[in-house]
């Protein structure tokens, strides 16, 4: 049984209320940080913990905080990115629904560390219930004197506001989020300058994911070194994984980083295996933008090592044979799923969500969707597969923000690993409309690469 840090008291009745959360030891981190630590100590502690951003990119949170510019007389802001919209990811929503105070507590400690007196939680517009929950939680915290002016008599002031977004995926990109928060159209900004220098209203800003901020609480409570003991190498601590797709028990699981992927899929503690006794065909390990893996690359890396749930192990083999931790949207596909159809579906999403600011993404995502639609519906040709490869290559890396990459990677990986399924669709146009390609050879063991 792995350790639980964020979801320790998840089954406690009434944990979403301030009183129960406080009884269970909540807001200890606020007391500890504000009364006995300096802001720099808090940053140092987070650095020691090795916490990496839980939003997708996995950038070390402590390092991000230390980059924050601190000019005199200019306010600094902490913005919490609750715009979780990646297909397959629903961990932040779970956290905000069931333990909103974990986020509020993390916000207070993090804002204190960064010297922010105003902080924002930007939540996706569709999550109205969660916005209400957070607003209630903030009101409760304020009534208890843990938020507002002169918190716990330490002289530190903090106001937290919840801001609903308009429901655009692109507003999860940090600079688009800031634009949207300022009341403008949610177009990503051109970097540099980075938000750490000129972010919200031109002031130094840190944007962190909901889970990253909530993770600061156990780090302060137990100390960074204690936190770093969990996990393997540079992947420390626990991580929320939202498991979905064809598994027996879909849901949000808190894992210690380092659990083998195989165990996570098949153990009864987590997903409980593939639903309906089917066989595993493919896995998207970290939300729709990360490369998809065929069955034979899931439990073992190309070198034959066991694949673990860590940032490094999932990325082992680069984009050739690896994938990414991403935001923890764990989507499992069984043998009845069609990879072409799934890729089309993902691309449809990116086409719909592209902001339309820079040309390769604006035009390319729509083009890829149309080509994929054609192939999926039995109208494609072999040249279309090569065309698709070429389009994704021309989008990747040439755009302002990572949405272009996120749209290109799933297509690239699907063609790289499942090219014969695409070809089967082209060569058997009628058959492909009535049945699926099935598992085929995707679970066959891979011959080790001779060095």
């Amino acid at each position, binding site marked *: 049984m792995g350790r639980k840090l964020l979801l320790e008291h998840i089954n406690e009745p009434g944990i979403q209320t301030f009183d129960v959360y406080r009884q269970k030891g909540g807001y200890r981190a606020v007391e500890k940080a504000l009364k006995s630590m300096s802001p720099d100590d808090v940053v140092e502690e987070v650095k020691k913990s090795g916490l990496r951003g839980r939003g997708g990119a996995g950038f070390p949170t402590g390092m991000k905080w230390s980059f924050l510019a601190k000019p005199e007389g200019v306010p600094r802001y902490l913005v919490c990115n609750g715009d979780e919209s990646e297909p397959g990811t629903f961990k932040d929503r779970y956290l905000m629904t069931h333990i909103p105070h974990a986020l509020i507590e993390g916000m207070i400690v993090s804002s204190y560390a960064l010297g922010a007196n105003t902080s924002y939680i930007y939540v996706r517009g569709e999550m109205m219930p969660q916005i209400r929950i957070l607003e209630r939680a903030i009101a409760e915290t304020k009534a208890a004197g843990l938020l507002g002016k002169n918190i716990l008599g330490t002289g530190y002031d903090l106001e937290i506001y919840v801001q609903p977004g308009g429901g655009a995926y692109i507003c999860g990109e940090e600079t688009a989020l800031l634009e949207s928060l300022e009341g403008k159209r949610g177009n990503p900004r051109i970097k540099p300058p980075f938000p750490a220098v000129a972010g919200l209203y031109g002031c130094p800003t840190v944007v962190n994911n909901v889970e990253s901020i909530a993770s600061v609480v156990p780090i302060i409570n137990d100390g960074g070194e204690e936190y770093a003991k969990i996990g393997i190498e540079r992947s420390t601590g626990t991580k929320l994984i939202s498991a979905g797709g064809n598994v027996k028990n879909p849901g949000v699981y808190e894992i210690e980083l380092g659990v083998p992927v195989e165990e996570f899929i098949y153990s009864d503690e987590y997903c409980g295996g593939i639903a309906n006794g089917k066989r595993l065909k493919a896995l998207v390990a970290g939300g729709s933008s990360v490369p998809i893996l065929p069955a034979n690359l899931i439990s073992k890396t190309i070198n034959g090592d066991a694949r673990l749930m860590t940032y490094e192990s999932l990325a082992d083999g680069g984009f050739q044979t690896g994938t990414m931790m991403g935001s923890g949207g764990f989507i499992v596909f069984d043998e009845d799923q069609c990879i072409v159809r799934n890729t089309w579906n993902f691309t449809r999403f990116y*086409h719909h969500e*592209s902001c339309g600011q820079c*040309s390769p993404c*604006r035009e390319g*995502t729509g083009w890829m969707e149309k080509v994929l639609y054609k192939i999926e519906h039995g109208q494609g040709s072999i040249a279309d597969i090569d065309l698709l490869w070429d389009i994704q290559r021309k*989008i990747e890396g040439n755009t302002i923000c990572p949405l272009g990459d996120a749209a290109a990677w799933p297509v690239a990986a699907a063609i790289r690993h499942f090219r014969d399924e695409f070809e089967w669709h082209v060569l058997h146009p009628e058959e492909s409309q009535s049945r699926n390609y099935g598992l085929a050879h995707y679970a066959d063991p891979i011959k080790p690469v001779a060095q």
Partner: protein
Amino acid sequence: MAEEVVKFKVTIDGIPVEVEPGTTILNAARQIGGDIVPPAMCYYSKLEGTGGKCRTCLVKVSKGSEKDPRPMPKLVASCRTTVMDGMEVQNITSPDVVEARKGVVEMLLINHPLDCPVCDQAGECKLQDLGYEHGDEGTRYEFERRTFERIDIGDKIQLHMNRCILCYRCVFVANQLTDEREHGVLNRGDHSEISTFIHKALNHDFVGNVIDVCPVGALTDKTFRFKNRVWFTKPVDAHRDCPTCAGKVTLWYKGDEVLRVTGRKDEYGEVEEFICNTCRFETKHTSDWTLEEPTPVDHESVIGANHYLNFNPPSVIHEDKKLQLANEEQLARTERLK
């Protein structure tokens, strides 16, 4: 004591240049000039905040700076990346850049109607130039293109959204002229469109400049629409005493008639000074203006070619009887002009 001037040395495609700190790669390249200048569809030096969107000006930074010689991992937008001392940039000497740019041109054209034969911008269209200089021949796109209805923005300007490449230049013009954000972008992705607040007419003394900044034929002058092809008109620089603007313009003549008035554009298609609506739309008589001299026109431009003084049929026609026969009428006209 003379103030010490710090200058950064940058090498673009092997050509060194010294520029002020804070200059962008694109502007450093423009100081060198010639073929190594990256094309720019959305950057407009006179408008603050433009650039970075069209991705045609992507270049490769093969050496970051003297202090940190690591190359940049991705291609960068040269219009928004400032130079560092000792930076080495590859533009046309990098196959990656040429390839990426070809991709961008193709992407820009997949939803473009390619209606140049009926477009007023044809002949001075930046997208035509871009496609000709950097694009591939032919397209691999075989689907329906997005379409929009035409919109009248005020009584003098027409918006033809089908042709728009969403460079946002006009949005910046409108934003920087007025306090209200009434001209902007609606929707998202490839169905986003330039529009005004519920089709509200833009009403500002300088709003006609959105026509000048538009690199394609999306925003056109209704007083000039379908009057003539630009390559049949002759541009002449002129000025007048204007109470609202500097009054320095280019008049486009056909015979004795002034067909349209635009700002004076430099070699990158950027106006020197924005002109007011009165100069642009309402003073179209030679008597309103003091003429200066014919506007210098690039020899390679179709506007320059309009005079046919140096027109030579390609040599392949001279060598092939069949082609000569097919071009009989045109060759006769050429003879007449000699």
